[in-house]
C-alpha cells in the first residue's frame, strides 16, 4: 500500500500541482459503520433431506462434470444413493427454492445419475473412517435403517453384525419394491459396498426364532430395525378364503423369484405404494389389475408419479370404493362385494373419513384379491424392557429406547415410513451409539451436527478430526433472501421414461436416467442458495475495489482497510452469502 506523503515544503513541491503517489494509504475502512462478512448458510434442499445430504455441494460438482466426486460426497452421509435416486419421495425437491421461482431441480434424477456413473466406473468412495474400537454392536434387520446404521458404525470403528430374518439382505428395499422401480443389481451393489467395509452378516436369523435376546447380550449396543412386514387385515368377512394375499406377501414372492399364479382379474385394495406396486407387478405378470381405494385420488398415499405411471400403463383405479365382503366359491375368493363412499369429516390423521353410501353396493368378479391397506410391525419378539407402545418402539430424540444401550429406527419407530427417514434414523443411531459407548456428553451434538431445523444431521461433520462443536451457520436460505435479478427462467429437465407399451410386459426399469449432458445442464440450474459459488458479483460491484479475488477455488477476500461498509456486495450477492454486522461487535 502506498505511503502518506508528509507535508512538503515549498522547495520540495513540484512547480505545478501534479500527483506524486496514490490514494491507497487512505484507510477508508475507518468510515465504516457496518462490516461485511462471508457466511455460508444452509441451502433448503440440504435441510429438507432427512439424511442430511450435502445436495447443493453435489450439484456444484455435477455441474462441473465431477460426478464421481459428487457421489463420494453423498456416500459420506448415505450408503444408498442409487436406491434413493430411484425410490425416494424427494422432500429436497419440495424444499428447493427454485420451485417457487420456476421449477425445482430434478435432484432425485441427479442422485440416480451420480450413482449410475459411479457404478459404471466401479468407483470406491474415499470414506472417512475412525480407528478401530473394541466394542461390538448388533443390528437387527438389514433394511435401509439397519444397513445404514451398520455402515456408519463400522466407519466409526466398531465391530458390527447384522442379523436378518429373511434369506436375503435389504429389507423392504429387497422384498417390497419391485424390480422395475429398483433393480436388484443396483441394490446389491450398494449392499456389497457396505459389507466390504467389514460388516458381518447372518441371514435366516429371526429374533425370537434362532436368535434370542440372550444372544444379543454379548454386544455392547443393539440397534432394532425390524421394519413393518406385517400386513393389516381388511376386517371384512370372507377374507380367510384362498386367493387373498397381502401386498407385502405378493411382492416378496415376486421379488424372491417365486412363481405366483394370479389369474386374470386381480383386485388390489389400498392406495399406498404397496398397492400400486402390487397392481403394476400383477400387470407385468399378465393380469388385469383393478385398484380399489376408499378415498379420492388426492388422498392416495402413494407417490403421485407412481399413480400416474400406473394409469399410463392402463391400470384402472376405482376411487371411493371399499370392499365389504368376500364371496367365495369352493373356498376360493370369486367375487368381491364393494360399496361406494363419500367423504365425511376428517379422521384422526386429518384426512376426510370415507362414509358408505347406503345402497351403492356392487359386486366384481375376481380371480385374486391383494390386500395392501397398510403394514405394521411385529414386535412380539422384543423384550418388555424396550417399552413398546401402540405397536411402535418409543425412542427419544437420539433414537434411544428406555433400555440402556438399545436404540431403534426405521418403520418401527414413530416417524414417516419412508426409505430416507429410515436411512436418517440409522445414521442418527450410529452417532448416538458411538457417543453412548464413549460415555460422552451428547447434549451439544444436535447443535453441532444439525443441518438446518428439520432434524437432519451431518456425519461428515461428526467425523471431522477436530471435533469442533461449532453450529453450522444457522440460517436456512429462503427464496425471499435471494437476489432474483440474477436468475432467469429455465425449464426443468425431467427424468425420461420408457414407453408405457414397453413397460407393461417386462420388469425393466421404467425410469431411464439422465445422460451426462442433461445431468450437467440440470445441475447448473441450481441457485446455490446460501453457499458461495464464486460468481464474483461482490468483487465486480464493489465501488472501492475493496474485495480481492481469493486463490483458485477459495472465497474472495475483504480488504477491511478500505471497505466503507456500503453493503452493495450484500445486496448483489444472488445467494445471501454476505452478512453485514455492526462494526466492532
Amino acid at each position, binding site marked *: 500500500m502506498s505511503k502518506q506523503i508528509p507535508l512538503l515544503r*515549498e522547495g520540495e513541491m513540484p512547480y*505545478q*500541482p*501534479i500527483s506524486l503517489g496514490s490514494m491507497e494509504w487512505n484507510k477508508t475502512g475507518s468510515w465504516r459503520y457496518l462490516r461485511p462478512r462471508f457466511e455460508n448458510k444452509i441451502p433448503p434442499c440440504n435441510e429438507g433431506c432427512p439424511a442430511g445430504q450435502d445436495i447443493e455441494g453435489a450439484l456444484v460438482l455435477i455441474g462441473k462434470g465431477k460426478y464421481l466426486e459428487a457421489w463420494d460426497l453423498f456416500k459420506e452421509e448415505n450408503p444408498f444413493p442409487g436406491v434413493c435416486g430411484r425410490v425416494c419421495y424427494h422432500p429436497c425437491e419440495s424444499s428447493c427454492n427454485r420451485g417457487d421461482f420456476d421449477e425445482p431441480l430434478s435432484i432425485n434424477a441427479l442422485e440416480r445419475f451420480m450413482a449410475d456413473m459411479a457404478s459404471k466406473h466401479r468407483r470406491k468412495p474415499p470414506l472417512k473412517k475412525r480407528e478401530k474400537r473394541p466394542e461390538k454392536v448388533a443390528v437387527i434387520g438389514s433394511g435401509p435403517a439397519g444397513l445404514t446404521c451398520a455402515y456408519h458404525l463400522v466407519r466409526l470403528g466398531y465391530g458390527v453384525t447384522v442379523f436378518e430374518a429373511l434369506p436375503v439382505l435389504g429389507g423392504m428395499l429387497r422384498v417390497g419394491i419391485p424390480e422395475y422401480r429398483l433393480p436388484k443389481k443396483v441394490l446389491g451393489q450398494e449392499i456389497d459396498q457396505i459389507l466390504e467395509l467389514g460388516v458381518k452378516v447372518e441371514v435366516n436369523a429371526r429374533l425370537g426364532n434362532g436368535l434370542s435376546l440372550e444372544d444379543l447380550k454379548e454386544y455392547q449396543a443393539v440397534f432394532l430395525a425390524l421394519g413393518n412386514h406385517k400386513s393389516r387385515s381388511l376386517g371384512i368377512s370372507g377374507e380367510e378364503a384362498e386367493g387373498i394375499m397381502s401386498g407385502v406377501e405378493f411382492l416378496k414372492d415376486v421379488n424372491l423369484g417365486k412363481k405366483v399364479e394370479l389369474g386374470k382379474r386381480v383386485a388390489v385394495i389400498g392406495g399406498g405404494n404397496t398397492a400400486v406396486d402390487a397392481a403394476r407387478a400383477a400387470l407385468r405378470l399378465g393380469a388385469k389389475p383393478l385398484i380399489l381405494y376408499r378415498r379420492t385420488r388426492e388422498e392416495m398415499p402413494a407417490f403421485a408419479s407412481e399413480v400416474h405411471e400406473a394409469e399410463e400403463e392402463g391400470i384402472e383405479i376405482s376411487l371411493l370404493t371399499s370392499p365389504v365382503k368376500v364371496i367365495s366359491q369352493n373356498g376360493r375368493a370369486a367375487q368381491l362385494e364393494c360399496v361406494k363412499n363419500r367423504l365425511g369429516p376428517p379422521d384422526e390423521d386429518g384426512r376426510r373419513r370415507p362414509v358408505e353410501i347406503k345402497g351403492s353396493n356392487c359386486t366384481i368378479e375376481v380371480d385374486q384379491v391383494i390386500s395392501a391397506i397398510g403394514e405394521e410391525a411385529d414386535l412380539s419378539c422384543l423384550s418388555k424392557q424396550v417399552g413398546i407402545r401402540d405397536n411402535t418402539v418409543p425412542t427419544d430424540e437420539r433414537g434411544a429406547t428406555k433400555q440402556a444401550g438399545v436404540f431403534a429406527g426405521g418403520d418401527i419407530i414413530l416417524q414417516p415410513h419412508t426409505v430416507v427417514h429410515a436411512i436418517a434414523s440409522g445414521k442418527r443411531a450410529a452417532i448416538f451409539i458411538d457417543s453412548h459407548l464413549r460415555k460422552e456428553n451428547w447434549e451439544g451434538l444436535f447443535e453441532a451436527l444439525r443441518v438446518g431445523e428439520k432434524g437432519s444431521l451431518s456425519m461428515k461433520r461428526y467425523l471431522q478430526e477436530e471435533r469442533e462443536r461449532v453450529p453450522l451457520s444457522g440460517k436456512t436460505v429462503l427464496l425471499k433472501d435471494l437476489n432474483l435479478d440474477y436468475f432467469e427462467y429455465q425449464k426443468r429437465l425431467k427424468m425420461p421414461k420408457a414407453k408405457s407399451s414397453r413397460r407393461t410386459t417386462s420388469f425393466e426399469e421404467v425410469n431411464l436416467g439422465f445422460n451426462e449432458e442433461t445431468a450437467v445442464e440440470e445441475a447448473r440450474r441450481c441457485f446455490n442458495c446460501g453457499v458461495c459459488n464464486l460468481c464474483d458479483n461482490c468483487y465486480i460491484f464493489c465501488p472501492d475495489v475493496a474485495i480481492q479475488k481469493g486463490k483458485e477455488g477459495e472465497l474472495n477476500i475483504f480488504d477491511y482497510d478500505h471497505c466503507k461498509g456500503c453493503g452493495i456486495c450484500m445486496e448483489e450477492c444472488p445467494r445471501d452469502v454476505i452478512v453485514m454486522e455492526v462494526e466492532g461487535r
Partner: protein
Amino acid sequence: MKKIMVGNHAVSWGVMLARAEVVSAYPITPQTTIVEELSVLCADGRLKARFIPVESEHSAMACCIGSSAAGVRTFTATSSQGLALMHEMLHWATGARLPIVMANVNRALGSPFNIWGEQSDSLAQRDTGWLQIYCESNQEVLDTVLQSFKIAERVLLPVMLVLDAFILSHTAEPVDIPDHQLADEFLPPYRPDLRLNSKDPHIFACLAPPEYLMEFRYKIQQSMLQSKEVCRRVDEEFGKAFGRKYGLVEPYRCEGADLILVTAGSVTSTARVAVDALREKGRKVGLAKLRLFRPFPKEELLEITRGADKIAVLDRNFSAGIGGIFAHEIRAAFCNEKSHPPVYSYITGLGGRDTTLQNLNEVIYQTYERPRPEEQSVWVGLRS
C-alpha cells in the same frame, strides 16, 4: 525577406515561424484575420498545425490548455469580449503552468459595443498571472511572437502579446520576415518531459487544499519575478540572432529630460514625433516606451525616469474609479521609493478615438503647467 503586411498577418507569420502545433481560436473583430491567415498557412502546408475551430473563446483557451498539457506548442488569439469570456481559463492556464502564447488585439469592452482600440481588455486581465508585452509596430509584433514562445517555455507561464485594434491589426507596414532556419535555431521545438503521458501517469492541476495552495501561488510569484530577467535575456538573444531588440522599457531622448512621457502600444510612434518636435523647440522632453507590463519593470522605468522632474503617463484605457491603469501601476510601483518624480495621469483615445499630436502636445503642456498632478486622471480630447 521584407513584406508589406498588416499587424494581424504579422502575428500569423510569427506563429508559422514558431512552428506552433495546435491553434485553437474563435473569430472576433479585429482578430479575425490572424486566424484566417493561419488557416491559409495551414491549408497550403506552410504551417503544420492542427487548427481547432472551436465554438467560443472559452473553449479556445480550454483547448489550448488541453493541448499544451499534452506537450505541444499551442497558440490562440482573441480580443475584448472573447478575452473577457476566457478570463476563468486564463487563471487556469497560469495555475497549470502551461506555456501558452496568445495574441490579444486591444479592443474596447462592451457595453456598449465598440470594436476599436482600447487597452482596457488586456489590462483587465493583469491579475491572471499571464505575462503581457505591448507592441508598437507590426515588426515588433512578429518578433514578439517568437520571443513570447521562448519566454513562456522557459518560465512555464503563459504569455500575452498585445497589439492595437486597426492601427496595427489592419494597417500594413513593411515587416522583415526572419529566415525560418534562423528562427528554428532561436526557438527549438517544445518537448516537455512532464505532460499527459500514459507511460508516466500523473494527475495534472490537482486539487490543492489550504495546506498547499499558498506554496503553489508563491511559486508563480517567484517565476513571474524571475521572468523579467528571462524577458531581457531572450530579447538580447533575439537581437544577436536577428539584429533587432526592444528591451523591457525603451528610453527615447530621455538624456537630461525634465519631463518624460510614458506610453505603451502604437501611440508611442506618435509620441516619438511629438518629442522630436518639442526637442527641436528646445524643450527637454523624453519618452519611455513601456513594453513589458507584466511583470512590471519597475527598476527599468525608475532608472530611466529618476532624473526627470515629472512623468506624464498616457493611458489608452480606463478603470472606473481609478482612471488610467498604467499610471496607477506606476504610482503604486514608485510609492515606497525615497525619491521619484511625480506621476501625472492622462486618459486619451478610448474606444478607437485617435490620439493626435495635438492631444500629445496638450498633455505635455498641461504637465508643465500644473505644479502637482491631479489626483484623478485628466481626460484629454473629451468634448465636455
